[in-house]
Structures are given as structure tokens and as C-alpha cells.
């Protein structure tokens, strides 16, 4: 009996809810989210929790959200889904049915967004998510899901464009991708682009998510010697790939990863081994992106660093963009009614620290990726929409010949 009580209590504790927001009595709008605070993807999940919290706090400081003539404060209710998709689906259902939140913010990762968006669609409450880029999320005809990560199938678009402009022009490429929703979508789009660009695809290999051992794959790559290696995978996989490539003395002329490179702890874990790696980001802490609440992206990055003790990357900026999109949509709709807010989100168009927030008819944002390269531990923007921004270090020297 006692054990049962302990079990129930600890389950509730582990599910954990954190609430941020206004004092009782003030009119408020509650945003609900189920985020990875613990579990294998907590490393990236925390950017979303902190980004949502920061945005809600800052918007409240600047007067909150106006519905008609009444100022409302934003409140946040976050559950920890322990990096488990099934739990996050249950938690979103709970947020809507029991906690009766007004609107939903999304989780990290396409696999989660894919499942959780179905809850939003079923209950007809709009969800804006900043963590899932897979085209699959937006190709089901859902009306209540919006995403602020650029389309997965176009992740490598800028990279492939840049490849065509390098000297010497690379001719062969190997594509590796993990078998989760995001990476499969990336690979599908990248394959077509590579073929259109005239590159020969030597390997097109799908590997298990969370693979820790790439030695077999790397040995195969070494034997076929492609000029370019593109890896669509998550942070752990990119980390393991680079470390094992070094230990097997495999060094193509160019390698790029969909995730990891812009993130500070990825570069810290690798140290100098991170140099020469290419990646992409939809956001840079540049003063050119002005924001109504955070001044601009550069100031935001500094404030975030001061408050949370680590540098934000595009995940955090995307999370902030989600909250701001809700604020703008609610004000435009003049109401908190989910259907009216949903229609307002579809029409939203404003500049923010994350860039221009505007959703296409399927619900996804339209942002280009900037190709970046690691140089001396720093992220250098290499290629953007208008062409080269800096000279890339290409071709990559062999491991034993690196300075």
C-alpha cells in the first residue's frame, strides 16, 4: 500500500511540471508544452524549455499580450517527457483535457512533433513547434500545426549550391542518414539535389538512429574515397562519426553534418577535431535581425548567455520565435479562441531575432540555411543566399597534416 503511494508520488514527481507566469487574478493565456528535460535528447531539449521561459518572461515584462484593449500575461506550463514520444503524446493530451491550457508549444525533434501534432489537430488547438523540420509533419493536411524550423528536405540546399562553386569542383559524394523522420526527409531532398547538380552518389546508406559504431561505414567510405561526405544525423552520431573518422585516418575533401556544428558543447567535446567540419544554421546571433522584445539577435544571445550560462543556438532562437508568433497572432486575432488564433498564425508576417516569421500554406516557415564551418573552435558563416560570405578551408587536409 505504502509502496503504491510512493510509486504514484514518484511518478508524478518524475513527470514534473514547471509553471512560469503571472500572479493569480491577472488575466492570462497559458501556453502548454512537453519538452525533453531529461533523457538522451535533454541536451537539446533544454534550449526549448529555456527559450520558451525567456520569451514568456520578456513579453510579460514588456506589457504582455493585448487582446482587444485588455493586456494579458502569458503563462507557461511545461512537462518533462523524458525523451519518450509516447509520454509526450499523453502529456499533450493532459495539457489540453485536464490542465486546459489555451495554446500549445511544440517539443524538440521531428519524431516527437510528428506524433504530438496529431493531438493538436484532434483537439483543434494550434501548436507552434520549433523543433521538427521533417516534411512529413506538414504533408498530412493538418491545419493546426506550424513549424519554425526550415524544411528538412532543403537542409542541404545551400551546401549543394556551395559545392558547385568550390575549386576544385567535387565530383563524388556519399550520403549517410539515420532512420528517423527528420533525417530520412533530409536524405530524400538531398538525393534529388545532388543528382540535379551532377554529382555522382557513391554511397547512399541508411543507418540506425543512435548508432555508436561507424567504423564499418567509415571503412567502406575510405575504400570508395568520395570527395564529399554528407551526414544527416543527430549530435551524438556526428560526434561519433568525426572521432572514429580520425581514428581510422579517413579524411574526405569536404564533410558536412545536419546537426551539431553550430552547437557550443559539440565543438567543446571535439576540441580541435571539430575544425574543418561544415554544417548549417538557420540563425546566427547577428545584429541585423531586429526584434520587438529582445532588441536584436546579438543582444538576445548575450542576455540568454547571462541568464542561463550557455550560448543559445538556432534551437533557442526558434523556441523564442514560436512564443513571439503566438503573441503577434493573438493580438492580430483580438481573441484567444483557438480557431481565430489559428487563422491569425497562418497570416502572420513579422521580423524577429530569428528572421522573417511567415508560414507557408502547409504551416512551415521559409528560411534559408547558411552554410557554416568550424575554424579554430568558432563558427564561421561561409555561404548564404547571396553567395560566399567567407573563404572556406577546402579541401580538408589529412588528419596527420592538420596544423
Amino acid at each position, binding site marked *: 500500500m505504502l509502496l503504491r503511494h510512493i510509486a504514484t508520488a514518484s511518478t508524478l514527481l518524475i513527470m514534473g511540471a514547471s509553471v512560469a507566469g503571472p500572479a493569480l487574478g491577472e488575466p492570462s493565456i497559458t501556453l502548454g508544452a512537453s519538452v525533453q528535460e531529461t533523457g538522451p535528447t535533454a541536451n537539446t531539449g533544454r534550449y526549448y524549455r529555456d527559450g520558451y521561459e525567456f520569451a514568456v518572461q520578456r513579453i510579460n515584462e514588456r506589457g504582455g499580450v493585448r487582446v482587444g484593449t485588455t493586456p494579458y500575461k502569458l503563462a507557461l506550463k511545461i512537462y518533462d517527457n523524458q525523451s519518450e514520444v509516447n509520454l509526450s503524446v499523453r502529456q499533450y493530451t493532459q495539457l489540453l483535457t485536464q490542465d486546459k491550457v489555451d495554446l500549445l508549444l511544440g517539443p524538440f525533434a521531428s519524431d516527437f512533433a510528428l506524433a504530438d501534432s496529431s493531438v493538436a489537430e484532434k483537439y483543434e488547438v494550434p501548436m507552434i513547434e520549433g523543433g521538427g523540420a521533417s516534411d512529413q509533419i506538414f504533408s498530412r493536411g493538418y491545419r493546426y500545426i506550424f513549424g519554425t524550423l526550415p524544411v528538412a528536405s532543403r537542409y542541404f540546399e545551400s551546401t549543394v549550391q556551395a559545392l558547385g562553386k568550390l575549386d576544385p569542383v567535387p565530383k563524388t559524394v556519399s550520403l549517410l542518414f539515420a532512420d528517423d523522420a527528420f533525417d530520412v526527409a533530409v536524405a530524400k531532398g538531398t538525393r534529388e539535389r545532388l543528382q540535379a547538380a551532377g554529382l555522382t552518389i557513391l554511397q547512399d546508406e*541508411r543507418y540506425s538512429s543512435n548508432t555508436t559504431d561507424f*567504423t564499418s561505414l567509415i571503412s*567502406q567510405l575510405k575504400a570508395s574515397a568520395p570527395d564529399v561526405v554528407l551526414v544527416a544525423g543527430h549530435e551524438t552520431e556526428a*560526434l*561519433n562519426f568525426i572521432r572514429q573518422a580520425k581514428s581510422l585516418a579517413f579524411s574526405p575533401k569536404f564533410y558536412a553534418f545536419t546537426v551539431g556544428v553550430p552547437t557550443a558543447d559539440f565543438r567543446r567535446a571535439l576540441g580541435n577535431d571539430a575544425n574543418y567540419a561544415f554544417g548549417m544554421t538557420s540563425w546566427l546571433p547577428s545584429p541585423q535581425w531586429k526584434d520587438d522584445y529582445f532588441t536584436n539577435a546579438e543582444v538576445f544571445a548575450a542576455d540568454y548567455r547571462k541568464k542561463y550560462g550557455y550560448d543559445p543556438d538556432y534551437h533557442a532562437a526558434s523556441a523564442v520565435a514560436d512564443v513571439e508568433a503566438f503573441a503577434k497572432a493573438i493580438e492580430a486575432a483580438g481573441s484567444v479562441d483557438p480557431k481565430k488564433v489559428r487563422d491569425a498564425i497562418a497570416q502572420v508576417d513579422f521580423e524577429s531575432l530569428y528572421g522573417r516569421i511567415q508560414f507557408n500554406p502547409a504551416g512551415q516557415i521559409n528560411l534559408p540555411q547558411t552554410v557554416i564551418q568550424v575554424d579554430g573552435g568558432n563558427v564561421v558563416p561561409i555561404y548564404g543566399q547571396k553567395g560566399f560570405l567567407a573563404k572556406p578551408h577546402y579541401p580538408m587536409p589529412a588528419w596527420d597534416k592538420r596544423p
Partner: protein
Amino acid sequence: MSLLLQVTANGILLGGLYALMALGLGLVWGVLNIVNLAHGAFIMLGAYAAFYLYTLLQIDPFVALPVCMLALFCLGFLLQRYVLNLIVRAPMFNTLLITFGFDVVLTYLAQIAFSADFRAVNPVYAGANFAVAGVTLPLVRVLAFGAALLLTTALWLLLARTRLGRAIRACAQNLLAARLYGVQPRTIYALTFGLGAALAGAAGDLYGVVSQFNPYIGNSLTAKSFAICVIGGLDSPVGVIIGGLFLGLLESLTALYVGPTYTDVASFGVLVLILIVRPTGLLGRTA
């Protein structure tokens, strides 16, 4: 042809790493009949110990090996002596439950203490390699393989030739007779569990150099070690080496000839096959 050689070499070295990880689990399971579901968490803690010794005190991970082993030995000894001992003669399910509890507690304490950031131990030679007959061999994996062989031999000698080893085996074979001969089961069990944890700590130390880690790597490592122990058999530490090598080779060759998505299918498929055809493992004696 040389690709096959390279992949085979990769498989053998991977197998050595796997065997090192599974050694502690095999000892504790074979002798104490405790399936330690927190084994992966011990490996994870070993990796963090090596990480902090390296980043804070600049101690090389190979030099830190005895320190990690000692630290994990103490943890294992205390956990067995004061917690596991309470249920050591209870049904198997209870030990599974308690060690599962350890696993959850240790993982979440690690998340709180160390954060979920990915870490790696990055000594200067972490990426070093050398070529033999056209095959590139990563230095650290070769050293880990050597460490696995060394620790297995040491363990085998301990169990076969020393007084302590005889006491441990006596407790496993016939507890009543052992007690009549003056063996203290409580201490022996605690020492054995501590030893298993120390071996996990050694594996964790080297794992941190070879691969990146975070608080959540425990579960998949426990599953892998479990599979290796079943495949190799629990009667002797050599079984773990055979099981590890077998699994390492199988995964590498599957990745080459079938496809990288099928490695897990292959390894757990073989596990099921062994359980059906030869349940005591490749090296196990039939009862």
C-alpha cells in the same frame, strides 16, 4: 579484399571493447546470480570519473584506470553490502527490480550533477592510429582490446588460483558448504559485486576515450553486455571474450554486407537463436 580485412579488424577491436564492458556483468551474474541492470550506469560513472580526472587534474585516462576501478569498486561494495544484501536470497525478480532502481537513480543523479551535455575524454592520442598490412588500426581500440585481455586473464587467475577466488566460487556452488568452511558470504558477495563494478569502471574509462557519453548511455550498454554474456556463456570469463568478439564481428560484417540499419537486428537475432539452440551460451556447459 582489403576492405573485408579492415572490417574484420574493426569487428575484432569492437569485440574487445564489448568484452571489456560485459566482463563485470558476467562475473556478477555467473557468481552471484544477480543480473545487474545498473551495469551500464556503472560504466557511465566510470566514464565521468575518467573525464573529470582528465579535465580537472590532467590525469591520462590509462593512468586513471586504477583510480576509476577503485572508485567504482567502493560504490559497488557499498551498494551490495547495504542494499542488495537485503534481497540476495529472494527471487530473481527482486534483484532485477532493485538494480533497475539503482539504474534510474544513478542516471538521474548524473543528469543533475553533470548535465546532459555530451562529453568525451580527448587526450592527444585519442585519434592516433597505425597501419599494419594495409589495415588501419585505431590505437586506443587496440589498447582497449589489450586491457580486455589483461583484465580477463587477471580475473580468471583470481577465480582459479587465489583463496579469495576459491571462496567466491564456493559461495556460488554451495552456500551452506561454504559457510561450514568459514567463508563469510556477506563479505564475499560484496567483494564480488564491487569487483564487477570495478570492471565496469575500467570499461567506462576506456569508453570515454573511444566514444562520446552522457548520463543516458547506460541502458543500451547494459543490453549489449547482457547479450554478450548470454551468447558467450557464464561459466568462465573467457566466455565473455568469445561472446564479445563474436558480436563485434557479427555487427561489423552485417554493416558491410547487409546494411548498417540491420546491426541491431543481427545481434539480437543471434541472441534469440542462441537461447533456442544453445541456452548456456557458446562456451557454457550444459547443466
